[in-house]
């Protein structure tokens, strides 16, 4: 019965996972380039190329910074806003809707707008800085600030997701819990720490996992902001895969990168699922 209910989801897995993985594994063993007529079998050559260095290691580092930084920023702000907006004060619905509305723009457009806002000459952020007397900054053009700026943009972009998910969970927490705690004399902070936090723990973990995966994989935002520059300060692994596979047409190398990437992430996910599934009662 359970399996039956689960079947549609399984079909999805087949389409979106097994098919591409099989394809990628096969292609990664060939020197397959779009402009070369033949695809000779080269075995592990594509993988060896990765290990020889080049851009892969630094991109991995960038990707980790990008992911972890975005995650922490989005999570903190999102949870904070969600908790704050639980109080049923006038205007709450409208405020929440407004805050969610920044979510509804494609990455390309968000990137174009933020790139312009960051611009050292015509950008509004620098105008703001100048207005309060701070020195202006070439956010996206300097090696030391480019990645941080991209992360800031991604935090802005991802907060609505956290806001929505945590709000939905908090909505189902019975008000009695809080009332009882208030009767017992618990302060706001204690109510938060002992009631709210445990209730949202699971959803926060899930959102963190999902956010981690999605941010790791995303590159449309960075691409629109900096094209991976300056130099490779903001180049992440998905961008390498895109550049290699789609822009340059080096299918074999891109496939090898995808598989290595996949293996790295799969381990993390397996651990998460193990902990998440084991701690719940089976009925």
């Amino acid at each position: 019965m359970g399996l039956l209910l689960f079947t549609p989801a399984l079909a999805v897995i087949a389409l979106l996972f097994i098919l591409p993985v099989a394809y990628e594994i096969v292609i990664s063993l060939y020197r397959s380039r779009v402009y070369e007529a033949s695809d000779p079998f080269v075995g592990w050559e594509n993988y060896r190329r990765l290990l020889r260095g080049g851009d892969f290691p630094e991109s991995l580092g960038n990707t980790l910074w990008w992911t972890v930084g975005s995650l922490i920023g989005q999570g903190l702000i999102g949870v904070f806003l969600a908790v704050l907006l639980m109080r049923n004060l006038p205007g709450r619905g409208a405020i929440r809707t407004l805050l969610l509305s920044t979510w509804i723009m494609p990455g390309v457009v968000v990137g174009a707008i933020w790139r312009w806002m960051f611009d050292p000459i015509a950008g509004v952020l620098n105008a703001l800085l100048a207005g309060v007397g701070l020195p202006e900054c070439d956010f996206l053009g300097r090696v030391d600030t480019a990645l941080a700026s991209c992360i800031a943009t991604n935090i802005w972009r991802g907060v609505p997701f956290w806001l929505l998910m945590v709000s939905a969970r908090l909505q189902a927490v019975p008000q009695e819990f809080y009332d009882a705690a208030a009767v017992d004399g618990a302060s706001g902070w204690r109510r938060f720490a002992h009631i709210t936090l445990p209730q949202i723990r699971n959803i926060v973990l899930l959102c963190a996992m999902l956010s981690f995966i999605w941010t790791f994989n995303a590159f449309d935002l960075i691409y629109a902001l900096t094209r991976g520059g300056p130099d490779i300060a903001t180049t992440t692994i998905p961008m390498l895969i895109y550049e290699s596979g789609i822009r340059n047409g080096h299918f074999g190398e891109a496939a090898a990168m995808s598989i290595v990437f996949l293996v790295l992430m799969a381990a993390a996910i397996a651990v998460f699922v193990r902990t998440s599934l084991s701690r719940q009662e089976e009925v």
Partner: protein
Amino acid sequence: MKRQAGVVCVLLLLAAGTVCPAAAAAPDGAQARPRIRITYATPITQSDLFERGEKQVLTRFMAENPDVEVVARQIPFDNYDMQVLLAARAGRPPDVGRVNHSTVQTWAGAGYLVELDDFVARSTVIDPNDYWPGFWNICRIRGKLYAVPLGTDCRVLLCHVGLFRQAGVRPPRTWNELVEAARKIHRPHEKVYGIAFPTNNEWSATYDVIGNFLVANGGRIIDDDGTRGTIASDPRAAEAFRFVCELVTVHKVCPPGMANLGGDVIESLFVNGRLGMMVSGPWVRAGLHRLRPDFEWKIHYDMVPIPAGPATGRSGSSQGGWLIGVFQGSPHREAALRLLEYFSRPESFALMAGAENLPPRRAAMSLGPFQDPFYQVFFEQLPNARPPVALVPQLPNVARAIQRAYQRVVAGGAGVDETLAWLENELTNHLLR
């Protein structure tokens, strides 16, 4: 409970209502007689550019060829190559479409384009001798012709009349004069800058920054075989690279943010009298007009050829442009070839003048819009123009590496010599393998 059931019902109805039309194949409007339907792929997605340019050619073609219907597939420029490549790989390419001069090698190598030698030999419209020879040869890969030129471009130097007069300088004709002029105009505390180049996409460093001076100086980044990088070992190429970097690092005549500067910001600086010089192509007029409709050539800005390189004493410029080709696997090759030929008429090039390009053949230079003296300096510059880098299949990789090298110096503070060495090594040992 009833409310919830109601909600669910409404949603299911909505879903059913939306999916059914989506699933049904969109039927074609019934045609009176069967017409051959061919698709034409183009990267022009802005509606007014398209209306003023290719759409007119297509309409006239269909009027003269009532048995053919042409459907345009407009694909955004940043995704154009990828989409056509995917379609070709899946066996569903457009019948005929634009090919970027930088991609023709790749697509020909992949077998996506049809050889055109026989067709061109028989054609009365396409006269190979009438085309700019350099650009015609781009269409030849391993001795065979895979596309014909559709439009070309080159870059010139724009000088702001007001700022030049104020600083008491004339439009430069040599690199030293350029530095001089920029220095005199540059007043950063007043937010007035000497010269700027666009650098916000992966091609701009190659075409809009280094390329012009590279060609003017006769330098080569890659050897003609396409197997080795020569930017460090070729002194002319190194000199050009050093020159553009030093504009930022040594002479300091550029605005901040040169590692990631957008073309629209540059245009805005220019029309607002905050930038002395900029480099751009025939598309610049429309861009400047959009920002300030009264900003006119000859009154507010001047255009001169790129200053002559010290090694050659001659001007030079990056040349780019588009070709048109017929794709393998097209079921209507004959109609596609007809369209390709129609596009190659001088009158067609005159119709497409609004679409940011220069005509690739001389017969069109004296037609209609191209009689506008605005184009004069571009026609002067064209004979000196060539693609800045040898058109190897790995060109996107190469362009990206050049961008990285420029950014290393300009944004990362690396030295020019070490960067040149890095770039040459990168090209020879990694990218061109």
